[in-house]
């Protein structure tokens, strides 16, 4: 059996794995339990990094979509697709972890708050991008239209956030719970763990994009072989 070569991507993924283990140790063992919310507050160290990851992913989708329309190089389309798929996973994780956290703290799974509305629409945009891609006949036009959706989605997300904030001013959030009234105690350790988690999940996002990118490249090569044979 041939041993897989230790190229850059493999080293990067192994490195990310080690960092993830350290991060999990920090989250579940090292960092002290928060006074107000108790153990449930540990969701923070997952929720904030995945939210950051999904927003970073839509930026990558937008940037590579613009580059694809400008340069017409396959590379950018592959990056956009990989970022959109990873972003959809991160978006789903963000929504799930957020709901699990909101239920004990706010007393509800979901409210019409600005950030929640925004993240839900961000997730739907990722799904729309991927579904449109999957349902469109293969070819250059598919890639071009995906790029267009990516750009419009990325421009739309900050506008939606702004609109949801404007909307909220009219309807103040009816949040009443222990966290809404008492001051949250943020220690040095919590900030450090949070920052480390953000770095970790950025690495996870990048390795997912790297992996998906190579996979996509191989898929394209197989498609080319099939076309050449027929």
């Amino acid at each position, binding site marked *: 059996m041939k041993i897989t070569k230790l190229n850059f991507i493999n080293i990067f993924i192994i490195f990310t794995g080690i960092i993830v283990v350290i991060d999990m140790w920090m989250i579940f063992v090292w960092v002290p339990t928060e006074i107000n919310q108790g153990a449930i507050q540990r969701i923070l160290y997952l929720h904030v990094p995945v939210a950051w990851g999904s927003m970073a992913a839509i930026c990558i989708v937008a940037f590579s979509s613009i580059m694809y329309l400008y340069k017409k190089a396959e590379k950018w389309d592959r990056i956009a697709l990989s970022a959109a798929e990873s972003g959809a996973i991160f978006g789903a994780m963000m929504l799930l972890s957020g709901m699990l956290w909101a239920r004990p703290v706010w007393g509800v799974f979901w409210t019409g708050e600005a950030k929640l509305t925004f993240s839900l629409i961000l997730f*739907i945009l990722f799904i*729309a991008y991927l579904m449109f891609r999957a*349902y469109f006949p293969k070819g250059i036009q598919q890639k*071009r*239209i995906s790029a267009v959706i990516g750009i*419009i989605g990325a421009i739309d997300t900050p506008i*939606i956030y702004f609109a949801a904030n*404007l909307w909220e001013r009219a309807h103040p959030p009816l949040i009443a719970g222990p966290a809404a009234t008492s001051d949250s105690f943020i220690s040095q350790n919590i900030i450090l763990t949070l920052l480390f988690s953000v770095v970790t999940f950025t690495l996870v996002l990048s390795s997912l994009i790297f992996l998906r990118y190579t996979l996509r490249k191989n898929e394209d090569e197989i498609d080319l072989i099939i076309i050449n044979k027929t």
Partner: protein
Amino acid sequence: MNPFKTIWNIAKRDLILELRRKEVLFTILGFSTLVLSIFVFSIDVNTKETQKIVPAIYWSAIIFSFTIALGRRFSIEIENGAFEALILSPISKDIIFFGKFTSNFILVLISSVFALPITSILFNINILKIEYLLLAIIISFGLSTLGTFFAIMSIKVRAREVMLSLVFFPAVTPLLFAGVDCMDKIIQNNNFSDIQSWIFFVLFYDAIFFLISLLLFDHILQE
């Protein structure tokens, strides 16, 4: 040829077709009336609390029915190959977009204004005000910009209607927020200054997406 005349010709063709078939207008009006009346059946309309959700019901009805109508309208064009002929004709792509946009805009505007008295009667509230007309114009502008753009984009995709709504709804959520909040304030007899920030926001939204649609329109038509 004069570009304005071309734009008007494309729009006129759509409107004449619409006058003869009465498909889009009836879809929007019929469907929105249906949605509104379902809510009348299922909630008690005379309490103060339910009156607050009337704007939400109204705008949801308009957006849902507009999406259905858009899907219908463009599927007719594809079946008969009319849209392909239009693209092949020697006119600039931007003008095609302007023309399609104009006809859609007129249709949404007419139907959203027509749906007003229906809402007014069914929910027993007075929403026939001049501020509302301004709101309907600017929101219809945004709806028809993105609607036209996405409808033309999803011409070739499988399960066209579903895909159209999947990209259209999230993109127009800001307009929905604006429409619902402004209408709520107009119903409560608030001043113009209360909805001013929303009006500016919608104008900004319309301008941005109109420009982007124009910029990207060429890309979605290239084969």
